C-alpha cells in the first residue's frame, strides 16, 4: 500500500510540475496575474508530494519491504538501520528521487525567499524550474520507477553495495545533489532574465546568494566524496579523475567562474552575456553529469545503472533543456546592452581572465572525460584517459588562475594602478617566494614542482592576508562578502599547499609482515601484531593490529580490516588511519600469505587532512559571502515598498 501511495504522490507531483512549468510562464508573457500567482503554490505543493513519495520509499527500506524491487535489490534485513535509510538513495531510482526532492527543496526556498522580486520574474523562475522537474519526474516514473513491485516478494534483499555502507555515503549524495540541483536556481534566473530581456545589476544581485549557496553544497559534497574515497576505497588516494568525480567537478569549475562573473555584473554591469552563458553552463554540466553517471555511457565504479532506454531519455531531455536554453541565448544575448568600460589593468579584466581560465580548465576536464567516448564514436578505438592527462593539463591552467586570484582583490575596479598594486603586494610576494625557496629544505628534499606549488599556495594565502590588513586599516566597516572572499581564497591556498606537500612528501611501502615483525617508514615503526577474526552486523572480517611508534614512543594502534559481506561476498578493504594535523598514518591489509603473515600497505601522508580543511574553508567563505547583509536588506526594503517593485516590474 505505502509504495503505491508514493507512486501516486509522484504522479500528482508531475501534474503540478506541468502546471508550474507552463501557466506561470504564459502568465508572465501575457501579464496575467492570475496565472503568475500559480507558481508559488504549485512549487510548494510539488515539494509536499515529492517529499511524501520520498518518505514512502524510505519507509519501505526501513520496514524491509522486499516486495519492492528497489528495496530487494539494494537492502537487506541485516543491514544496520542507518544504512537501510541511506540505501533509499543508494540505488539509481532512489538517487534520482533524491535529485527531484532537492529540486523541490530549492523551489520552495525560491518561493519563500523571493519577496523582493517582481512577480513576473518569480513566475518565470519557478516556471523554468518546473519544466526541469517535469523532465526528471517523467524520467523517474517512466524509466526508473523506484516503487516497482516484485511479486512474489523476495525473502531477503541483495544488500547495499558494501562500498556504500559508510557514514560518508549517508551524507555525500544529498550534499552533492543539493549543489548540482542548486545551480538550477541560477539557471532559472538566467533563463527568466533572457525571456524577459531584463539583464541588469539587480538580476545579478538576486542570483548571487543562490549561486553561492549551491556552490557551498557542491564544494562540501565533492570534499565529502573525496574524503570517502580516501578512507573507504583503501588505496590512500583522494582524487582519481574518475568520470563521476569529473562529472561533479565540472559544474564546480563553471559555478566558481559564475560566482566571479556575477560579482562583476552586479558591481559594474559588465559581462552580462558571459555571466548568463556561465549560468546556463553550470547547470547544463550538472545535467550532463547526471547523464554520464546514469546512462552507463562511460565505464566507472559509479555507473551502476545501464539501461539504454534511460540513456536515450536523458539524452533527449539534455538536448531539449540545454539546446533550448542555448538557442534562447543565441537569440536574446545579442540584445543585451554592453556593460561599463574598463581598462586592461582592472579588477574586471582579472575576474574575466579568471573565469575564462576556470572555464577552459572545465573544458579540459570535459575533453578528458569524454575523449574515450569521442574516439569510440568515430571508430578510432577505445582508450581510457588517466590522471597523467588531467594532472598535466589542469595544473598549468590553474597556476595563472591562482596568481590572478591573489592579485584581483587588490586592484581597483575599472582602472587599476599598477604601482599601487605592486606596493600593496610586495610583502606577500616576497614572503611567498622565500617560503617556496626554503620550505622544501625543511622537509628534506627540494624539487622545482614542489617549490612552484608552495609558491602558489603561499602567494594566495599571503595576498589574501594583505587584502585583509589593508581593508581593516582603510575602510571603517567591511562587508561579510569581503571576509567571505578572503576566507575562500585562503581555503584555496591551504588546499594547494596540502596537495603540494602530499604529492611531494608522501611515502608508501608494501610489506610482508609476520606477527611481531616491524617495518619502518618516514621515521615511524609499524609493528604488526597479527590478525584475528571479528564479526560485524552483516559481515565477517579479518582485523589486523598494527602498533605504530616513533623513536620508541607509542603513537597509535591501528586496526585495518578485510571484510567479507554476507550477501554480496566481495572482499572489502577497510583501511585504518591515524589522523594527525601534520600527517595521516594509513595502513591497509593486503592478503594472507600463510603462517600468520600478511601483506600490508603502509603510507605516511603529510598534511593530507588540510586538503579537505581547505575545502571547508572555501565553503565557510561562501557561507559568509552569501550571508552578506546587502542581499537581505535589499529583499526587505523591497517587501516594505511594494510600489517600488511594481515600478521596476512595469518599467521593463
Amino acid at each position, binding site marked *: 500500500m505505502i509504495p503505491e501511495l508514493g507512486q501516486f504522490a509522484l504522479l500528482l507531483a508531475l501534474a503540478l510540475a506541468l502546471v508550474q512549468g507552463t501557466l506561470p510562464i504564459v502568465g508572465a508573457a501575457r501579464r496575467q496575474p492570475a496565472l503568475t500567482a500559480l507558481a508559488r503554490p504549485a512549487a510548494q505543493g510539488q515539494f509536499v508530494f515529492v517529499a511524501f513519495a520520498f518518505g514512502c520509499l524510505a519507509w519501505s527500506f526501513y520496514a524491509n519491504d522486499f516486495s519492492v524491487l528497489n528495496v530487494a535489490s539494494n537492502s537487506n534485513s541485516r543491514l544496520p538501520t542507518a544504512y537501510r535509510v541511506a540505501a533509499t538513495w543508494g540505488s539509481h531510482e532512489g538517487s534520482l528521487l533524491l535529485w527531484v526532492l532537492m529540486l523541490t527543496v530549492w523551489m520552495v526556498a525560491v518561493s519563500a525567499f523571493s519577496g523582493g522580486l517582481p512577480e513576473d520574474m518569480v513566475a518565470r523562475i519557478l516556471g523554468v524550474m518546473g519544466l526541469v522537474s517535469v523532465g526528471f519526474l517523467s524520467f523517474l516514473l517512466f524509466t526508473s520507477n523506484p516503487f516497482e513491485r516484485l511479486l512474489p516478494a523476495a525473502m531477503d534483499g541483495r544488500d547495499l553495495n558494501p562500498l556504500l555502507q559508510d557514514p560518508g555515503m549517508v551524507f555525500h549524495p544529498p550534499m552533492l545533489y543539493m549543489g548540482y540541483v542548486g545551480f538550477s536556481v541560477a539557471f532559472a534566473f538566467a533563463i527568466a532574465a533572457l525571456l524577459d530581456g531584463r539583464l541588469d545589476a539587480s538580476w545579478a544581485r538576486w542570483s548571487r546568494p543562490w549561486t553561492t549557496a549551491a556552490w557551498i553544497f557542491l564544494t562540501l559534497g565533492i570534499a565529502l566524496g573525496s574524503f570517502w574515497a580516501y578512507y573507504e576505497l583503501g588505496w590512500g588516494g583522494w582524487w582519481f579523475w574518475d568520470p563521476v568525480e569529473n562529472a561533479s567537478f565540472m559544474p564546480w569549475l563553471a559555478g566558481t567562474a559564475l560566482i566571479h562573473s556575477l560579482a562583476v555584473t552586479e558591481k559594474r554591469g559588465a559581462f552580462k*552575456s558571459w555571466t548568463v*552563458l556561465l549560468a*546556463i*553552463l553550470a547547470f*547544463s554540466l550538472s545535467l550532463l553529469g547526471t*547523464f554520464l553517471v546514469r*546512462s*552507463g*555511457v*562511460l*565505464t566507472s565504479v559509479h555507473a551502476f545503472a545501464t539501461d*539504454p532506454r534511460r*540513456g*536515450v531519455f536523458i*539524452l533527449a531531455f*539534455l*538536448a531539449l533543456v*540545454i*539546446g533550448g536554453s*542555448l*538557442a534562447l*541565448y*543565441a*537569440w536574446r*544575448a*545579442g540584445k543585451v546592452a554592453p556593460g561599463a568600460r574598463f581598462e586592461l589593468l582592472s579588477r574586471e579584466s582579472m575576474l574575466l581572465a579568471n573565469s575564462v581560465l576556470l572555464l577552459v580548465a572545465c573544458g579540459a576536464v570535459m575533453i578528458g572525460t*569524454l575523449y574515450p*567516448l*569521442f574516439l*569510440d*564514436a568515430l571508430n578510432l*578505438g*577505445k*582508450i*581510457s584517459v588517466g590522471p597523467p592527462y588531467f594532472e598535466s593539463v589542469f595544473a598549468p591552467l590553474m597556476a595563472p588562475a591562482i596568481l590572478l586570484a591573489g592579485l584581483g582583490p587588490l586592484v581597483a575596479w575599472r582602472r587599476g594602478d599598477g604601482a599601487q598594486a605592486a606596493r600593496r603586494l610586495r610583502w606577500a610576494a616576497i614572503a611567498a617566494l622565500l617560503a617556496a625557496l626554503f620550505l622544501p629544505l625543511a622537509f628534506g628534499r627540494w624539487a622545482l614542482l614542489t617549490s612552484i606549488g608552495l609558491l602558489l599556495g603561499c602567494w594566495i594565502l599571503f595576498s589574501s592576508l594583505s587584502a585583509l590588513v589593508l581593508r581593516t586599516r582603510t575602510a571603517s566597516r567591511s562587508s561579510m562578502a569581503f571576509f567571505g572572499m578572503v576566507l575562500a581564497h585562503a581555503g584555496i591556498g591551504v588546499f594547494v599547499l596540502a596537495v603540494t606537500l602530499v604529492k611531494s612528501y608522501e611515502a608508501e611501502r608494501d610489506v610482508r609482515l609476520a606477527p611481531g615483525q616491524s617495518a619502518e617508514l618516514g621515521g615511524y615503526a609499524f609493528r604488526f601484531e597479527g590478525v584475528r577474526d571479528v564479526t560485524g552486523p552483516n559481515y565477517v572480517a579479518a582485523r589486523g593490529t598494527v602498533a605504530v611508534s616513533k623513536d620508541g614512543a607509542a603513537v597509535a594502534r591501528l586496526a585495518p580490516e578485510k571484510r567479507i559481506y554476507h550477501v554480496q561476498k566481495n572482499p572489502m578493504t577497510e583501511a585504518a588511519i591515524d589522523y594527525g594535523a601534520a600527517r595521516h598514518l594509513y595502513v591497509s591489509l593486503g592478503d594472507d600469505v600463510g603462517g600468520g603473515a600478511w601483506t600490508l600497505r603502509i603510507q605516511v601522508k603529510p598534511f593530507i587532512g588540510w586538503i579537505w580543511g581547505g575545502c571547508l574553508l572555501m565553503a565557510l567563505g561562501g557561507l559568509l559571502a552569501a550571508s552578506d547583509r546587502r542581499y537581505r536588506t535589499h529583499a526587505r526594503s523591497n517587501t516594505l515598498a511594494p510600489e517600488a517593485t511594481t515600478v521596476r516590474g512595469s518599467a521593463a
Partner: protein
Amino acid sequence: MKRFLWPLAIFVLLVGFLAVGLRRDPREVPSPLIGKAAPAFDLPVLEQPGKRFSPADMRGKVWLLNVWASWCESCRDEHPLLVELSRKGTLPILGLNYKDKPEDARLWLTRFGDPYQLSVADADGRIGIDYGVYGVPETYLIDAQGVIRYKRIGVITPALLQEKILPLAATLKK
C-alpha cells in the same frame, strides 16, 4: 548575434557524439597494444625455475600468449580448448602465469593438463601491467616480428578460435 550561436553549435556536436556513444558497449575494450611490439620481459620458466624465457625467443613464429592463474575460475572453462589446440600443434601457446604461487600453478597444470610449450611466472604481476592485463584470462596473438596482432579479454570460445584467431594466425604465417 553570430558569436552567441557558438555555444549552441558546440553543444549540438556534443549531443551527436553522446548519441553514438550510447549505442556502444563500454566493456568492449580492445588493447592499445595491437599493432605494437609485444612488451619485452625476461622471466623464470614455471616448470624449470632455473631457465628463463623472453618473447624474443619466439622470433619468427606466430604464437599465442595466454595469461592464466590457478586462482582464476574462468581459466578452467577455457582450458580444455587450449589443451585441444595444443594437441593439434598448429599454433604454439605460451602461458603467462599471473600473480600465482608456483606450487599451485604446477599442481593446476598436472591436474587439468598442460597445453603450454612453457609458462613463465609473473609472480608480482609486473609484466601484466606492461601488457595492460585487465582480467584473467587474456590471450594475445603475436606474429613472427613480435608484434601483437590480436587481444582477447576473457575466455576464448571455440567460435572465436575458429572464426577469428586461427584464420588470422594463418594469414600471419604467410
